[in-house]
């Protein structure tokens, strides 16, 4: 996806020079391999900072919340779905945005790569088409990108933006026949005790840094429930029950809204597969309500509609 960079720069330059946007939000190349940095530029002179490759992992929609200016922004499939969600949830207005669409082939799972080279220090990563090469002091290895995608990317069925004002390239082929919920089904098959143990073990390393929450574009509450002190809903120590309360409540707060962008999992410093919480809710939304978050501006979000003629009995 390296070839997108030039096109992004060109578009950003045009938008800024013509005064169509006040700022442009994209990524710049990071100071360490596999870690690019979200960046905001407000001058055409800065466009050469902009960069795109398969390491643009953090969801840029985070940076839109509450902005009042006109913004150019790059968006791949999941980011564009979060932008849609942001618009329908009144966090940003459509006419403030100029969306530069990225047909996405998936983001590299930096931890998987790190494991593949047995935790040796990676000094450089180079992408070439469908493969990438990592180099260190005494090694060099080439991998297929598709074998090292983030787990959410490997089951993604919305790689192309669902909303955009301009595309940097023609759409990529969508993945079909992926079993997105194989792991969820396994957990669903567990008895309650086993399930509880599974989730307890899953989060036992959590250090309550809240990176998952803060990386999540859905988590824009001015004060998160874990930060409330009057009343205090959740204890702040590393007590496992409090930690579990945080994770489960946060997941439920994302029900019908999560686009499975994978930001939570990508940022977790202790490697917790946090999507196991949200994925179950995504699966339920899909199975019970045929709903996938952020696909269209024309429908209200799943959990903020009430219709007297709803086809579900239990709701009437």
């Amino acid at each position, binding site marked *: 996806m390296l070839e997108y960079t030039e096109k992004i720069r060109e578009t950003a330059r045009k938008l800024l020079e013509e005064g169509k946007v006040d700022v442009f939000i994209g990524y710049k190349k990071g100071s*360490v391999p596999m870690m690019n*940095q979200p960046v905001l530029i407000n001058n055409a002179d800065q466009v050469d900072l902009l960069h795109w490759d398969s390491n643009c992992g953090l969801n840029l929609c985070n940076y839109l919340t509450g902005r009042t200016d006109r913004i150019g922004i790059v968006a791949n499939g999941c980011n564009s779905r979060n932008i849609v969600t942001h618009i329908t949830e009144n966090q940003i207005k459509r006419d403030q945005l100029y969306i530069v669409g990225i047909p996405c082939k998936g983001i590299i799972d930096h931890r998987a790569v790190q494991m593949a080279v047995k935790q040796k220090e990676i000094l450089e990563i180079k992408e070439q088409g469908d493969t990438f090469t990592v180099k260190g002091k005494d090694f060099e290895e080439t991998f297929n990108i598709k074998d090292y995608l983030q787990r959410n990317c490997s089951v993604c069925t919305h790689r192309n933006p669902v909303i955009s004002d301009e595309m940097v390239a023609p759409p990529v082929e969508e993945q079909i026949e992926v079993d997105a919920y194989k792991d969820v089904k396994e957990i669903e098959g567990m008895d309650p005790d086993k399930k509880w143990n599974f989730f307890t073990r899953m989060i036992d390393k959590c250090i309550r840094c809240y990176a998952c929450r803060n990386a999540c574009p859905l988590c824009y509450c001015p004060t998160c429930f874990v930060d409330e002190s009057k009343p205090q809903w959740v*204890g*702040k120590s590393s007590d496992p029950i409090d930690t579990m309360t945080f994770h489960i409540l946060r997941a439920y707060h994302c029900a019908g809204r999560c686009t499975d962008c994978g930001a939570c999992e990508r940022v977790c410093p202790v490697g917790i597969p946090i999507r196991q919480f949200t994925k179950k809710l995504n699966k339920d939304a899909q199975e019970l309500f045929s709903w996938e978050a952020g696909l269209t501006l024309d429908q209200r979000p799943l959990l903020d509609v009430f219709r007297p003629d709803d086809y579900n009995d239990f709701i009437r």
Partner: protein
Amino acid sequence: MTKKIYTKEEWTEALKGLANTYKIFVPVMEGDFHTFKALDEKKIPDLDFKNTQLSPKSLVYPQSERMFEYTLDENAPDANIIKESEKDYSPQAIVGIRPCDAHAFQIVKPNFDNPEYQDPWWIKRYESTTFVGLGCNDPGPTCFCTSVGGGPFSEKGLDVLLYDLGDTFLVKALTDKGETFLKKTQGGKEADEKALKAGEELAAGAADKIEVKVQTDRLKDKVQTELFDAPFWDDVAFACINCGICTYLCPTCWCFDIQDEVLGKQGDRIRNWDSCMFPLFTLHGSGHNPRSKKVQRVRQRFMHKFKYYVDKYNNGVQCSGCGRCVRNCPVNIDIREICELMNGFLHENQ
């Protein structure tokens, strides 16, 4: 001071032999990362590691610590009386701690132990801990200990230092505490000249492998208020998501919050790590928040490390160059770059 040579197998056995004298913490591979765990029959210490994902600061300064407890049961004779909770100060040793992380305890010390204030729990646990370091033969690309007063074989804050000579460890006592530790450690043999020389060469070579140099020498000269108002903070802060990764993984971040938690009639007063990245950190009871904006919080973290600490303690910067925040910041805010910006900052009048 004692200097001994152990084969690696002997060393592991010797550690196991200390089980009755010390609680021994060693790096263990768990999931994708190394982490310090108490040595027991099931744990395999892995001293062939880069560094642990989380710093060992929690072994002296736990993320959550019960300070006091009380009962709210009015019928109890000690109703509503706060009592100090029992704590474990039995001797412990952190074996394999990297020199940067040991140095970090020295950086943190003036906060918990100074003429004005002494934090009893930090001090007691610090004093009950023996720091058995492992020099870094191969410092990583994000390591910059040599820029902040440390080094891959720095002895700062260590009681014992291990040199990995391939099949053997050269083990040197550095303090009385370290001497005591080695006296109780079985096996090994007296280190010969050859081993000592090999150790010296290893240490000299390792320091040269650190390519990153971060300038810190001009921080002290800067005017606090000018640096505070420097124009780069907005750009530095833009990407930050205000999570606690940098502060919680940092071996030198020490801030805490105190909470009362009540379950039924039992009350606990708990001290928890806190993070200046969180808006709640500075929220006043009145509702006012002096650091309500992200840029203010990001600036605070770097100003504390590279300016306020420098000015207050005259003890270098509040950073041991371990590189954890560099590797783990989800938005790649690189402390080395920020330090350079601050160090190189010139006010418009200068």
